[in-house]
């Protein structure tokens, strides 16, 4: 295709010293459109990898779980943030992924279902795909419903799922008993054991971080593609989107499918770290936590979802440290106030405070800080 005169096609040269001047569409849509972003993203990713040798194993474990939750939060952000379909049923899809992965990789002939396929490149896509199929099956409801009706229906899904997983004892081990989680094994090498590559926590940390980078880049690319633009059109005004030629049903089904794929993958990975899944853990609270991650991080931004997931995950170790600092708060669950209550109250309060004062979340705070310094000292 030749570009019309005056408009350069393809990736043309940037003008030096003019970071906001775009001379082509490709430049405008680039993932990292300024040099500053390119450099700092590189530094950030490099730092994240370097941390694996610097931090203690306990901290690495927390961060590894946070990265997996970030994958799930990015998934929820695709359906709720980009496509605007409110889903309180994310925990259901996470559960489907977790049990698909656990059943595929589990030892055959045990008390719970297992097929002995412990290779991660088998069970991870399978977990995502099974969850995606479930998402596509639920989607016909979503295409008929809007807004809060959809939120309530997906909430019902969590309760139905919880019941099924508690009753299906061959798969899940039953409530209070549980089963072993998916075993991460890559070409015969167990990633959840100490080995030549490092300790168990280091290896898992690196695995989760690499996967998060892959999933995050994929989501960013999806968001700036034809599909991403269709999602945004549906979110902003679904009827107008249909009028300009966006097939609503197809894209809503697609949004649910992709989001559930992310949720399923996150579910499969989530319990690798602890090595144990209990069917009671896929409840409404998990869904609310994912919603909190998306809202606190920043709706319809991938970096925001990651920031939100890190924020929520780090809340737990921080509150656990509170009894040492604030003697009023007890570490004992039988006393009031205890750390668990403080943690739960913080979830709720943070959701409320962010929505009231900074609806764009942590991402919005970052934008504010950036804009302030961009025009400093003329901040008005």
């Amino acid at each position: 295709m030749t570009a019309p005169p005056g408009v350069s096609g393809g990736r043309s040269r940037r003008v030096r010293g003019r970071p906001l001047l775009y001379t082509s569409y490709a430049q405008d849509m680039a993932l990292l459109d300024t040099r500053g972003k390119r450099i700092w993203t590189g530094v950030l990713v490099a730092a994240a990898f370097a941390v694996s040798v610097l931090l203690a194993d306990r901290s690495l474990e927390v961060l590894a779980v946070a990265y997996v939750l970030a994958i799930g939060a990015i998934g929820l952000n695709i359906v709720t943030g980009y496509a605007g379909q409110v889903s309180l049923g994310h925990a259901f899809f996470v559960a489907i992924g977790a049990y698909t992965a656990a059943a595929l990789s589990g030892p055959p002939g045990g008390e719970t279902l297992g097929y002995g396929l412990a290779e991660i490149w088998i069970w991870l896509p399978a977990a995502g795909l099974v969850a995606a199929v479930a998402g596509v099956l639920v989607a016909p409801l979503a295409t008929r419903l809007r807004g809060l009706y959809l939120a309530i229906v997906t909430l019902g899904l969590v309760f139905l799922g919880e019941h099924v997983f508690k009753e299906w004892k061959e798969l899940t081990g039953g409530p209070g008993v549980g089963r072993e989680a998916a075993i991460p094994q890559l070409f015969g090498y167990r990633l959840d054991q100490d080995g030549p590559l490092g300790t168990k926590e280091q290896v898992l940390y690196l695995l989760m971080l690499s996967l998060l980078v892959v999933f995050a880049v994929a989501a960013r690319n999806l968001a700036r593609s034809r599909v991403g633009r269709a999602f945004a059109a549906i979110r902003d005004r679904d009827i107008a989107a249909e009028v300009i030629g966006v097939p609503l049903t197809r894209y809503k089904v697609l949004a649910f499918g992709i989001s559930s794929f992310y949720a399923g993958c996150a579910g499969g990975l989530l319990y690798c770290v602890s090595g144990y899944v209990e069917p009671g853990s896929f409840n409404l609270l998990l869904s609310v936590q994912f919603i909190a991650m998306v809202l606190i991080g920043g709706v319809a931004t991938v970096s925001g979802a990651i920031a939100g997931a890190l924020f929520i995950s780090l809340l737990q170790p921080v509150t656990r440290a509170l009894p040492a600092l604030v003697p009023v708060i007890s570490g004992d669950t039988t006393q009031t106030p205890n750390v668990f209550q403080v943690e739960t109250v913080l979830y709720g309060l943070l959701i409320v405070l962010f929505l009231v004062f900074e609806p764009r979340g942590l991402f919005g705070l970052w934008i504010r800080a950036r804009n302030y310094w961009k025009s400093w000292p003329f901040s008005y």
Partner: protein
Amino acid sequence: MTGLLESLIRGLGNGSVYALLALGFVIIYKATRVISFAQPALMLAGAVAVSYLAEVTGFYAAVLLAALLIAGVALAIERIAIRPMVGRPVFVVSIITLGIDVVVRVVVNGFIGRDVRQVGDPWGFAQVSLGPLVVQQRWLAMLLVTAVLVTLLFAFFRYTRYGLAMRAAAFDQETALAQGVSVGMVFALSWGLAGFLAAIAGMFVGTGQGIEQLTWVIALKALPAIIVGGLDSLGGAVVGGLAIGVVESLFQSYQGEFAPWLGQNFAVVTPYVVMLVVLLVRPYGLFGTREVERV
């Protein structure tokens, strides 16, 4: 046959509790277009308030005081967290109520403690015979009180100034405002009413088996009720609540015998199954207004 009728009465009893909660949801929804996920917390708070007050003032006075207290709490929540959000997307406000629910529940759980708390009701598990039927007194109490409350509520909406103001604001906020209706007052009143009804419902949930930290989940069964009845229909909320209660009770009695493959405690999730089935047939519920969209 007597078994079936007894099961029906239990269903209607529980269903009337769901109806009270569903009415709270619908009243708030009609006034503000928001689904308040804070109802479970208010319900639990009501039950806890009754259980503490009953030791001091006796049961019946405690119920009234607790209902007024929770109405006050709901008013405070509306004024502090919901009113500043007027004009923002309803989804955002609903998520705020979700956050409030979590916070209020933690506080209330502190008052419940780790054990079951009795609300001090006079009925307990005591039974009464109606001809050949033997039913628990509390089902009848629930049904009777709900019937009275629903009648009063509908009369309030039909015959009083404030009821008219609420109907007008629900129909068209701007026109109501232009006619001199204080829409802020309508918002406050709707939250207050919802809190009042939630507290009464909480007291009934606590009759007999008492309340514990997990009791709040029962309030979520009102959500299928409002979906079945239609989000913006008061009559639908009552019908939906009763229907959900009856279906749940019938499954509780007969599912173990006729469909054991559905698993134990399937009755607990039947409200959600009913909701999904109704939605497949009628996406806006049995009595809800169908949204007409024009470009």
